[in-house]
């Protein structure tokens, strides 16, 4: 292919060269020197991205391994207590991992139906002007800084939850789940909406032509056709939820214990790193333990993004 195209370009350029020598030499210079340079730059930037990701991974791995030289990997992965400053310290990641999983699952249960529902409304039901308003509102929603949401969570949501469920504190997993769901909504809505809109118009017409109602068309035809895209949207939303730090640090109560329910204070992987990093001595076991937590987090988000990517690729087919 590349051979062919360069040949055809050359044959097009042939007569021009004889007509205007100056122009031709410029064109030739561009093709001989300019284009390879541009190509090189593009290639370099592509490679750099890969290199960065790889370096981050290596860095995390190196510092995590420093921990495992002092502290057995098995006790890190399966330890049920995170007591980094007791004597001797315990670095069991299980409470943090469960904290992350609880908060994330809670957020998913809330934001997936809400997000997909909103996407369906925007893509299929809303009249045009309302659609535009809603789409820009969703974008605005995405641009609210997480610390602002966290602040609202502390001063407004947490007291409401405390009074509703008669808790000793409103700073618990549920507060985090609710706010995180809110944060994942824009991602889920806009990507699901794209998936719904890209369902061919012909499917709808075929269904309407057979006398299907709007709801039957949406439920039986449009939604299944868009399912891969919607799943990808959900996975990306989850990725966002798992990685989010500020909100959970502010509102989940920061108790690194194994949670029994979402109504208890708990702590996620992200909040642990952010909260403790400032208090550790560089090069201590605690310091390296936080890197190990980071590695666990990296593995989780990497897997989620990979799965989302697989779904998106299937959706494009």
């Amino acid at each position, binding site marked *: 292919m590349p051979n062919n195209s360069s040949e055809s370009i050359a044959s097009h350029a042939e007569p021009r060269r004889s007509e205007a020598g100056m122009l031709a030499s410029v064109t030739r210079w561009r093709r001989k020197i300019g284009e390879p340079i541009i190509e090189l730059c593009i290639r370099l930037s592509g490679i750099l991205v890969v290199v960065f990701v790889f370096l981050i991974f290596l860095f995390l791995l190196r510092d995590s391994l420093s921990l495992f030289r002092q502290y057995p990997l098995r006790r890190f992965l399966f330890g049920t207590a995170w007591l980094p400053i007791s004597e001797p310290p315990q670095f069991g990641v299980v409470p943090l991992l469960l904290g992350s999983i609880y908060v994330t699952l809670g957020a998913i249960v809330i934001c997936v139906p809400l997000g997909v529902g909103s996407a369906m409304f925007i893509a299929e039901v809303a009249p045009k002007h309302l659609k535009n308003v809603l789409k820009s509102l969703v974008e605005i929603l995405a641009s609210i800084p997480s610390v602002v949401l966290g602040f609202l969570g502390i001063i407004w949501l947490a007291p409401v939850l405390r009074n509703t469920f008669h808790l000793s504190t409103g700073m618990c997993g549920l507060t985090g789940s609710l706010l995180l769901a809110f944060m994942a909504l824009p991602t889920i809505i806009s990507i699901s909406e794209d998936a719904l809109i890209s369902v061919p118009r*012909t499917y709808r*017409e*075929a269904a309407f*032509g*057979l006398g299907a109602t709007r709801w039957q068309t949406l439920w039986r035809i449009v939604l299944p056709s868009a399912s891969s895209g919607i799943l990808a949207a959900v996975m990306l939303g989850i990725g966002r939820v798992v990685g989010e730090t500020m909100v959970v640090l502010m509102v989940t109560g920061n108790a690194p214990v194994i949670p029994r329910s979402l109504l208890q204070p708990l702590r996620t992987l992200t909040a642990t790193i952010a909260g403790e990093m400032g208090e550790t001595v560089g090069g201590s076991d605690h310091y390296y333990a936080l890197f190990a937590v980071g590695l666990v987090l990296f593995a989780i988000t990497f897997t989620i993004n990979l799965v989302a990517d697989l779904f998106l690729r299937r959706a494009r087919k």
Partner: protein
Amino acid sequence: MVSEPVIKTVHLDCFFGAHQVLRNINLEIPANEILGIIGPANSGKTTFLRALNRLNYLHRTYSQSGEILLDGRDIRQISDNLLRKKIGIIFALPQVLPVSILDNVAYGPKVHGVTNKETLARTVEEALKRAYLWEEVKDRLQEPAVRLSGGQQQRLCIARTLAVGPQVILYDEPCSGLDPISTAKVEDAMQQLKADYTQILVTNNTKQASRVSERCAFFLMGELVEIGPTHDLFTYPQDKRTDDYITGRFG
């Protein structure tokens, strides 16, 4: 034409926004007729077809005035779903759904409330047979319908429409994407369906209209220029514009 027409339009005007696409169309279509509608692009053929089962209303800017009667009853008195069940449509490009062959045909009856598996299976088989597709697909009903060839897909769409139990079938240039052999098969299916259905065929292919239809209507720029028995229309057109079109002077 002694019998009551199945479809009758009275002073039908159709608009997309401010643009008038059809002007004062008065037509009567008796039962079991195959009516051909010919005319150059943008003459309003497709709009006419889609006005009959109100598919035009999927466009937000669409409006129409005048009356369309189905069996003497104004179609505004019939719900969209029931109307489209009674007046099925076959589109220019086969619009198969991304499910199996079986589910494509079963989809129509399902949306109209048929849930019994045996009834569905019988309906599907019957419809596929009538669309001349059964022999080709009976051993691969669970395969995705998109694997069928273009001609098979179009006959699958016909089967899908038949499975709903329509009274009238509309064809919107059903063979524009098909090779001659597939076209012939679709035309055969139409001839076989004549006994039980009223059919309206919009086509850009005047030869197809002359092969298949009994009466033929010529549309030009939103007007019904001429309608008559196909043989007469093609041999002694009454209007000069019809003559120009069918002899290939324009369009």
